[in-house]
């Protein structure tokens, strides 16, 4: 049946308000009289606080409250918003005597205005016992410095922590006999890769506004991707009953996984809890760069074995992940390095994944779009490209020979899961055509010192977390025949509210204008873990479809009862429920009742809430999946390298995506274009850098360069749809998978152009120039 709303380029339902500057974000709706909360931060990478003198600061007019580690509850918690119960170690306090990175919080100040709060910070005197930090993550294990010496770190799960060795998590998976299978391989290709820490750099920095409501609840209005997780963390950290915390999510100015880890919310909530007064905290750009989270920097050692025909038989991955001072997302990001790379290829006979995540005295790493898959894809796909050279095979042919097909399973999926949908083969073929793979050749000289190169890579991700993610949705038929859709998917700018409304409208045979979308308030919205793990379309979408179907059945039943006709003979339209005798085939034969009875939706709705009806119609559903259907992308890069300077210009990037059915072609396309741009930033420009004392050097947009519109070349996008049988209307996810191919595709294009394979990102001109010089000497 053809779709009326699904597959349409619907504008975002909040788009006009946002694009014309209407107040919609946290700081736009905060009480102007809220106390301003500022944090004193550690100047040392590792130190114990000996004393804090706040006496001078306290005398300042307008200072309302001060808190140090002596004032806060002693229940450890995590800031990761990943699952309930959390997998990340509970290794934090609101304030701790031990400070573990430059920027770690030392004291909380609340004042009537920002200038006073900042002045107060300068008047606080702190004496530190400075300790030796561990800054090099390759030296973290078995280091004399132990980042978390305390004995009350709490774990909900066994994650392979060896705290005395700074090891947060260990993840090992072995299937088959690696050594035996490697010995049978004709070609074994190896590589060591260092994807760097990357900053999310969302435009709206981290912020929250808190107040006490008349019922004694602490209300946290937060720029967050994980309202329900945030609610739990605030209650635990403040040692409050869960029912005393409520989280409201207004419009969000971007997240990219950053806001899947809680930031300043707890400090403002603590101030409100202690003072009873409204408070707000806004991290400035420097704090956002230096005191939140980044992508995990990693070292990945890869070995791939293949036979002469090009069948990949063995993948051996050894991963070391730098999780920084606290363990948010340490074990889960580590695991995803393997989960979202190893099942790409299905002809394997043995795999080994050995992963460790370690503490260091640097800013914590956390969730970032791609969530380990990005780093894993860079390492694995770079090595596959290298293998293609060694085999003398076209890298696209090597992929086509080895990628997993529908109905196949992967060695990594030990439960024998079979792949439900993929169009990756079509994505590869389409991408080749779009970039001109055959005609251009992998290397082309275009000037006396300018060479162009082509490169490609493929990737996968998941759609939600199998067995863990669930989402609930409710749709109510209002008293006047319109609908209200309540869901918990946390739209942080990508358009989840819009595509969920499209799905509900499709099921209910109505138009989007007839549906009010309400999200998110933890007191009103049905539970949803939030917007992460590429779950919005697949997990939340499935819940919305089921809830809408549930409501549709109730509407039809109610209408049939009212019309006194069989329920199988009524049909829902935008305006009414019609009696269609022998609904279906016979209807077309013209022998139907010439005067079909109908009840308008308005009348039915009115009846349901007053008068004789007394049964307001509400559809409800909860969805969770035992699988996480992978979306796929084939990415192709064309670069131009200046051999005299080492500068790489990205000419074009072609991304062809299989996200199943495309629910909204415009919003999906922008997801791809934006994710590719972040991947381009990671490949060529972005780098979180520290000095020798552990102070972050890249703490503003002057030092940390995200791509401008001059730096991304031309990004071209196409979709090759598959149909995911378990997805809503056949859809899978698109949010994360799009960030993974630029790094390996661009490094390969640079290799093809000038013969230098860069394995430590980003590919800066000086780095490439030096390597070219070394190679030539």
């Amino acid at each position: 049946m053809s779709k009326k709303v699904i597959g349409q380029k619907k504008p975002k339902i909040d788009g006009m308000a946002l694009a014309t500057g209407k107040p919609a974000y946290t700081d736009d709706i905060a009480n102007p009289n809220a106390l301003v909360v500022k944090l004193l931060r550690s100047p040392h990478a590792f130190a114990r606080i000996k004393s804090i003198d706040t006496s001078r600061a306290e005398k300042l007019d307008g200072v309302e409250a001060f808190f140090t580690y002596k004032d806060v509850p002693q229940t450890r918690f995590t800031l990761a918003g990943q699952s309930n119960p959390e997998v990340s170690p509970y290794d934090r306090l609101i304030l701790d005597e031990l400070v573990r990175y430059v920027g770690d919080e030392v004291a909380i100040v609340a004042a009537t205005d920002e200038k006073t709060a900042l002045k107060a910070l300068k008047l606080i005197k702190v004496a530190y016992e400075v300790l030796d930090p561990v800054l090099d993550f390759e030296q973290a294990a078995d280091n004399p410095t132990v980042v978390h010496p305390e004995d009350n770190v709490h774990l909900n799960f066994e994650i392979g922590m060896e705290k005395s060795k700074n090891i947060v998590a260990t993840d090992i998976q072995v299937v088959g006999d690696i050594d035996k299978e490697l010995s049978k391989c004709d070609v074994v290709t190896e590589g060591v890769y260092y994807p760097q820490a990357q900053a999310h750099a969302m435009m709206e920095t981290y912020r929250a506004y808190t107040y006490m409501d008349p019922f004694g609840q602490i209300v946290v209005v937060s720029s967050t991707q994980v309202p329900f997780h945030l609610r739990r963390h605030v209650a635990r950290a403040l040692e409050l009953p869960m029912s005393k915390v409520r989280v409201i999510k207004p419009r969000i100015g971007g997240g990219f996984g950053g806001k899947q880890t809680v930031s300043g919310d707890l400090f403002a909530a603590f101030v409100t809890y202690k003072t009873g007064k409204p408070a707000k905290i806004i991290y400035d750009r420097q704090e956002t760069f230096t005191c939140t989270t980044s992508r995990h920097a990693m070292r990945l050692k890869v070995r791939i074995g293949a036979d002469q025909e090009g069948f990949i038989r063995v993948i051996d991955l050894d991963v070391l992940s730098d999780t920084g001072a606290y363990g948010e997302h340490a074990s889960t990001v580590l695991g995803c390095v393997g989960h979202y790379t190893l099942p790409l290829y299905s002809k394997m006979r043995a795999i080994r994944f050995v992963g460790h995540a370690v503490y260091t005295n640097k800013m914590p790493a956390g969730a970032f779009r791609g969530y380990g898959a990005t780093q894993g894809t860079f390492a694995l796909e770079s090595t596959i490209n290298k293998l293609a050279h060694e085999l003398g095979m076209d890298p696209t042919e090597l992929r086509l020979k080895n990628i997993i097909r529908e109905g196949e399973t992967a060695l990594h999926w030990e439960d024998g899961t079979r792949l439900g949908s993929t169009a990756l083969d079509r994505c590869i073929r389409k991408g080749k055509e779009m970039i001109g793979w055959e005609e251009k050749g992998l290397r082309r000289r275009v000037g006396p010192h300018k060479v162009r190169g082509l490169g490609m890579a493929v990737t996968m991700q998941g759609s939600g977390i199998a067995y863990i993610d669930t989402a609930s949705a409710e749709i109510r038929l209002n008293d006047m025949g319109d609908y209200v859709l309540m869901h918990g998917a946390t739209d942080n700018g990508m358009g989840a509210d819009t595509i969920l409304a499209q799905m509900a409208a499709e099921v209910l045979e109505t138009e989007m204008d007839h549906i009010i979308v309400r999200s998110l308030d933890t007191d009103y919205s049905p539970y949803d873990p939030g917007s992460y793990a590429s779950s919005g379309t697949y997990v939340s979408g499935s819940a919305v479809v089921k809830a809408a179907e549930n409501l549709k059945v109730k509407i039809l039943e109610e209408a049939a009862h009212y019309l006194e006709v069989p329920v199988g003979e009524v049909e829902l339209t935008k305006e009414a429920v019609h009696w269609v005798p022998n609904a279906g085939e016979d209807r077309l034969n013209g022998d139907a009742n010439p005067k079909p009875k109908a009840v308008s939706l308005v009348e039915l709705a009115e009846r349901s809430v007053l008068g004789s009806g007394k049964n307001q119609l509400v559809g409800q559903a909860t969805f969770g999946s035992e699988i996480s259907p992978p979306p796929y992308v084939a990415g192709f890069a064309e670069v131009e390298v200046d051999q005299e300077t080492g500068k790489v210009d990205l000419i074009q990037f072609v991304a062809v995506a299989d996200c199943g059915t495309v629910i909204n072609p415009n919003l999906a396309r922008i997801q791809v274009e934006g994710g590719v741009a972040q991947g381009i930033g990671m490949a060529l420009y972005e780098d979180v850098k520290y000095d020798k004392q552990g102070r972050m050097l890249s703490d503003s947009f002057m030092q940390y360069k995200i791509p401008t519109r001059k730096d991304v070349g031309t990004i071209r996008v196409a979709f090759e749809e598959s149909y995911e049988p378990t997805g809503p209307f056949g859809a899978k996810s698109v949010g994360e998978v799009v960030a993974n191919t630029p790094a390996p595709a661009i490094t390969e294009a640079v290799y093809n152009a000038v013969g230098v394979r860069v394995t430590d990102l980003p590919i800066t001109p000086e780095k490439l120039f030096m390597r070219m010089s070394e190679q030539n000497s």
Partner: protein
Amino acid sequence: MKIEFTINGKKAAWDVAPDDLLADTLRAHGFLSVKKACNTSCCGLCTVWVDGQPTLSCTMLSARANGKTITTLEGVQMEAEEFAKILTSEGAEQCGFCSPGFVMNVLAMKKELKNPTDEEIIHYLTGNLCRCTGYMGQLRAVKTYLGVNSAQ
């Protein structure tokens, strides 16, 4: 200190401190379209017009607005809506946080450049960062808005 100036067509006289920055002052007076995201003149989100010229208000002292004509997005809603319809029809506002500064600069560009090329458009708007869209949808929208759809 007191500054006297014109804000969105109306005369105003506000008390400001010598070290107040214009973006903060405007937000404090309810002009909430003005967004701050870098405090270092790098991102373009705080763009307003000062005497018609796009200006970064996060690093301009409020005192310097004395005697000037300041325009925020609240003051050009008709033009903003015309462009916003095109921008949203591409889905290219995304999170929307960078939109006000971006829209102010696009409206200024329309007055300043006649039939610009892609390169001229990109150059004019380089100072407006966006982390969501990858810029392509914004370029499509701007070209439609300016009526310069020639493939380049």
